[in-house]
């Protein structure tokens, strides 16, 4: 079945309850889903951001049911997304979302999601904001390119901070071969191409080129609007997290205390998504270390595409855990 939006995989298999205020859905975790071969090569684990994708797709289905068949739902806000237990092939992910309208903005819905495994264990919790566009709506998608084809003007006050999105014409400090030596992720879910700047303990600037040939653009319907080709929010967050992981792992290495174990995506909080990236654009992640506590790190930063800031990330928690049984996704 062809999709009407870019997505890394079909992240909902079945929908159960779907009332005006609640949607429940199920996703069976299988190792041969797209992207999972690279996450990771030696064992498979459903990436945390794919749980976000599952919630997002459940809300998309809710929107089509309750706001009209042509309705779409763009993720604009992650107040909180936290992971509690890993999902492995053979597990069943149960997604439960309470959906509420926003008193001030008829296009906005607030979602509180609770995701559990087949055995009842909590896998993830999320509090999200999504912008619903009904068919024929004039409200543009985040980062929608105006009909003239020119880039949107920066907001008053400017989202183009000078120096924050520099034009980089010098050689990367880590090329792709070096990135692969740092990160355990592999094709097609290795979402960092190069590192342009890296100051251990402080910050990193890493890039990822978005291409129309990526698996997330497979199976799309014909004659979709430009907004349908927005790079999926789940992969955007994953790419940011991987950039932060490069910074953290290199920082630990530089300090002579290399980090060992399985990389765990602990949480993302206070994320605002105000734009989007399309095939042909280069994502530029600026990630700063906020604090390190033992085998855990808290980071913050922003995501740029084509000279425009498209997201700000208040806080991401990454961790390493020794045994998979104790690990989150």
């Amino acid at each position, binding site marked *: 079945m062809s999709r009407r939006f870019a997505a890394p995989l079909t992240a909902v298999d079945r929908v159960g309850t779907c009332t005006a205020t609640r949607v429940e859905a199920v996703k069976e975790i299988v190792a041969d889903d797209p992207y999972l071969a690279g996450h990771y090569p030696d064992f498979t684990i459903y990436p945390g951001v794919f749980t976000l994708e599952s919630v997002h797709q459940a809300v998309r289905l809710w929107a089509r049911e309750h706001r009209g068949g042509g309705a779409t739902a763009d993720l604009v806000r992650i107040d909180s997304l*936290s992971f*509690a237990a890993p999902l492995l092939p053979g597990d069943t992910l149960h997604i439960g979302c309470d959906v509420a309208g926003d008193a001030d903005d008829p296009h906005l819905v607030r979602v509180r999601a609770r995701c559990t495994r087949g055995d009842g264990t909590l896998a993830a919790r999320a509090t999200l904001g999504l912008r619903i566009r009904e068919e024929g709506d004039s409200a543009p998608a985040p980062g929608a390119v105006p009909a003239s084809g020119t880039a949107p003007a920066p907001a008053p006050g400017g989202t183009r901070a000078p120096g924050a999105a520099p034009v980089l014409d010098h050689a990367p400090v880590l090329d792709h071969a070096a990135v692969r030596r740092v990160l355990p992720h592999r094709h097609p879910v290795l979402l960092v191409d190069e590192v342009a700047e890296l100051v251990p303990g402080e910050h990193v600037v890493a890039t990822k080129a978005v291409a129309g040939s990526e698996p997330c653009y497979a199976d799309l319907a014909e004659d979709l609007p430009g907004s349908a080709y927005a790079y999926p929010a789940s992969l955007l967050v994953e790419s940011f997290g991987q950039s932060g992981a490069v910074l953290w792992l290199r920082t630990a290495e530089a300090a002579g205390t290399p980090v060992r174990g399985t990389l765990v995506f602990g949480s993302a909080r206070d994320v605002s998504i105000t734009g989007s990236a399309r095939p042909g654009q280069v994502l530029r992640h600026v990630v700063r270390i906020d604090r390190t506590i*033992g085998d855990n790190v808290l980071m913050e930063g922003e995501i740029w595409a084509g000279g425009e800031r498209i997201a700000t990330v208040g806080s991401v928690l990454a961790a390493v855990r020794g045994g998979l049984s104790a690990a989150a996704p």
Partner: protein
Amino acid sequence: MSQAVNADHLDELREIVAEVLEVEPEEITETSSFVEEHEADSLRAIEILARIEKKYGIDIPQSELPNMGNLRAVHDVVAQHAGWQA
């Protein structure tokens, strides 16, 4: 040792814990167990610790985490490290 409790501090801490655990503040009582009653785990404990350190500009050793299992216990640990007087 249990310290005298400042209601404002307790409410600030309750707010932090509720945000991290994604529950309503009023669900967190002084003695409700984060793990047993609010589905906390080691990652959430780290987040609570980091937020408290940031808010009050203090350092709390990771070794205190096992002593921070409910709101009252968190308050007592923070009071000790922040030098809060009753």
